[in-house]
């Protein structure tokens, strides 16, 4: 008996998908042939399904089995994974090393790549900035380093450059930096010369630590620095500087101080006047001379030497001309 379909009658024509779905809903076991697999058709029509070709015996053949075991044996395994690649590597590198052309080409390629990278603008140093140095010193540093800009930062050896700069007498310490933007920065601490020391025939500038900070060709280059001479003078710089300070009223006449016998100072004025200061308390002695000078204008006279070594009294040595004049005037009287 037919079942009564109580669904509403179809008013419009169904699309193909709708009709397939509709058919599936009402008759699930009927499907268009395109959707059914060959196996299912066979079953639908009561045919025996074709057996899938199952391999009846999956056993490996004797040779396959032996080869498989051979691959798994440790000697073969290690040769395969380690020995043979190593061998190939050794042979290849030996070939490269033995044939000149390949080796040279190899090094060329390597060098090219290296210089290409080093020549990149990121690594170029355009200029050098020197901080904390006088112009003359900066000039001499530039001259000694002999850099031609632009230069790659790979070619700079900052440690060597630092040593080279620090070898200069004017430089106390130096530090070098590569700043972004192609800047080589040199920060210097200069030795500040305190005095000039006439050592034999050369004029050496000496700083507060007793180190030579430069050599002068002429005294006139640094008229602002006091001049000392004599052996051992540089070990008593501060005493000498005190004497210099006290001698301020006659500074226009003062030429320098000379250490005598490594124990006391001679003060040298122009016109070859010499004030011989005592070993002990030379400043007091100098003050007495200055006092004498201010009252009696003693230094303006024709005095060759004022000997203050005996602190109890100054001894004057007149020049030959003055002695002669005095002698003649006395003999006239």
């Amino acid at each position: 008996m037919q079942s009564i379909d109580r669904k509403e009658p179809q008013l419009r024509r169904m699309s193909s998908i709708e009709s397939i779905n509709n058919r599936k809903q009402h008759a699930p076991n009927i499907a268009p042939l395109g959707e059914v697999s060959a196996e299912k058709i066979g079953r639908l029509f009561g045919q025996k399904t074709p057996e899938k070709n199952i391999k009846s015996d999956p056993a490996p053949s004797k040779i396959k089995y032996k080869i498989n075991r051979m691959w798994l044996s440790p000697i073969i395994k290690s040769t395969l994974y380690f020995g043979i690649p190593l061998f190939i590597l050794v042979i290849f590198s030996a070939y490269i090393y033995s044939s000149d052309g390949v080796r040279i080409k190899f090094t060329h390629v390597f060098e090219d790549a290296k210089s290409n990278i080093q020549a990149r603008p990121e690594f170029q140093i355009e200029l050098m900035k020197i901080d904390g140095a006088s112009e003359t010193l900066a000039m001499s540093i530039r001259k000694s380093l002999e850099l031609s800009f632009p230069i790659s930062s790979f070619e700079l050896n900052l440690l060597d450059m630092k040593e080279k700069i620090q070898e200069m007498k004017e430089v106390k310490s130096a530090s070098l930096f590569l700043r972004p933007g192609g800047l080589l920065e040199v920060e210097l601490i200069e030795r500040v010369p305190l005095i000039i020391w006439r050592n034999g025939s050369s004029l050496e500038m000496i700083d507060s630590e007793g180190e030579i900070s430069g050599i002068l060709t002429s005294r006139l280059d640094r008229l602002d620095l006091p001049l000392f001479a004599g052996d051992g003078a540089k070990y008593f710089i501060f005493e000498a500087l005190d004497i210099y300070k006290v001698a301020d009223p006659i500074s226009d006449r003062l030429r320098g101080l000379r250490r005598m016998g490594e124990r006391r100072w001679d003060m040298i004025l122009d016109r070859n006047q010499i004030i011989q200061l005592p070993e002990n308390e030379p400043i007091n002695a100098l003050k007495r001379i200055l006092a004498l000078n201010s009252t009696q204008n003693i230094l303006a006279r024709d005095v060759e030497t004022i000997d203050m070594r005996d602190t109890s009294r100054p001894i004057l040595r007149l020049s030959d001309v003055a002695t002669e004049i005095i002698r003649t005037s006395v003999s006239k009287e």
Partner: protein
Amino acid sequence: MNTLYENQRTMRQKRRAALQRGVVAILDVGTSKIVCMILQFDPSVQINATEGIGAIANHGSFRVIGVAKTRSRGVKLGEIIAMEETERAIRTAVQGAQKMANIRVDHVMACFSGAQPKSYGLTGDVQVETGSVTNGDIGRVLASCDTPNFGDDRETIHAMPVNFALDQNPSLSDPRGQIGHLLSVDLHLLTIDARILSNLITCIKRCDLELAGVVSSAYASAISALVEDEQELGAACIDIGGGSTSVSVFLRKQMIFADSVRIGGDHVTSDLSSGLQIPRNTAERIKTIHGGVIATSMDDREMIDVDGQTGDWDHDRRKFTRSEIIGIIRPRIEEILEEVYHKLQAARFDTLPSQRIVLTGGASQIPGMEGLASRILGQQVRLGRPLRVHGLPQAATGPDYAAPVGLALYAAHPQDECWDFDLPEKRMGAMPMKRAMQWVKNNW
């Protein structure tokens, strides 16, 4: 017996060499499947094993790194009948296990269930020479056992000293160092058909493998399926395999009896196949999915499609109730269990202090097996699964893997057998001289 003794000794040496190398394979040649397991031994743990911590404790010394199972070919009733086929199956299993382990294996220990094992209980006694028992004394007492004439075509597979007695002390497991005069031994000798054993050895040799030991699968499955106190107090392990069912009885941690029944799960399959007129593999599938041994009224209503694959529409669309299938399976299982019962009776199993029965093997998984077995064999029946060992995949932990797992345990810590002791060298020469002297003494 001497050549056998030498053979077994060389196998022991190979086993030791394999353990030193650290890799040994286990091969279980069954009727329905061949299993190959590759064990990796940790030498540091092996050192402890020599200090005698027991067979169970030693199973931490190895790790299963490869297992492969393949359908067995050319084996019937646990015996090789087509060597070429079996060799291919062994190759498949070994190659699969090697692939999983990613290592080559050269030494293999094998077990199989067929070849009609027969147990003999032997005794021997000897006077202790130096006052306290030495290894030499044990060798002599083992040699003094009278070997029964079991025929040329049989060979000893196990010869285990089960029990030592020293003067009045009747049960010693290890008499070495003890003081006494008369040392006697109970020796359990298990013999099998030599031709079948040589078939197996040839198959393994042809696969480029070295045989490091042969074990009866009755013994192997009992090692893994029986727990220690069952082995101590007395238990029987019944391994119901594909082609044969092996029975072993344990007492005081020693196997005292082994036998096999030449019926197994395959016979159930062939019964189903012929009873329902369906191909064997369909029958096998129906047995494993719908099989059972105890029918209930629910089973009358459970219809099972049986696809005959003949092309005949009517024949291929038959349906059977589960009760009908159970009706085919059950008599065969009962037959197996009754045979086992007779074997146990023959071994006087009922005199043991504890009569535990452990069912294992693939066919023991049939639902209702436990209940049926307890009706036939005795009340204390349980289903045994093999011991857990390191690295064994979940798929290989079922009762059908009892024999390979037991063999793995055996490989790690074998029982001392006759050939582990130095037998007196001039035994064959000395005996007639001794007899002559005895004769002279008696008659003068």
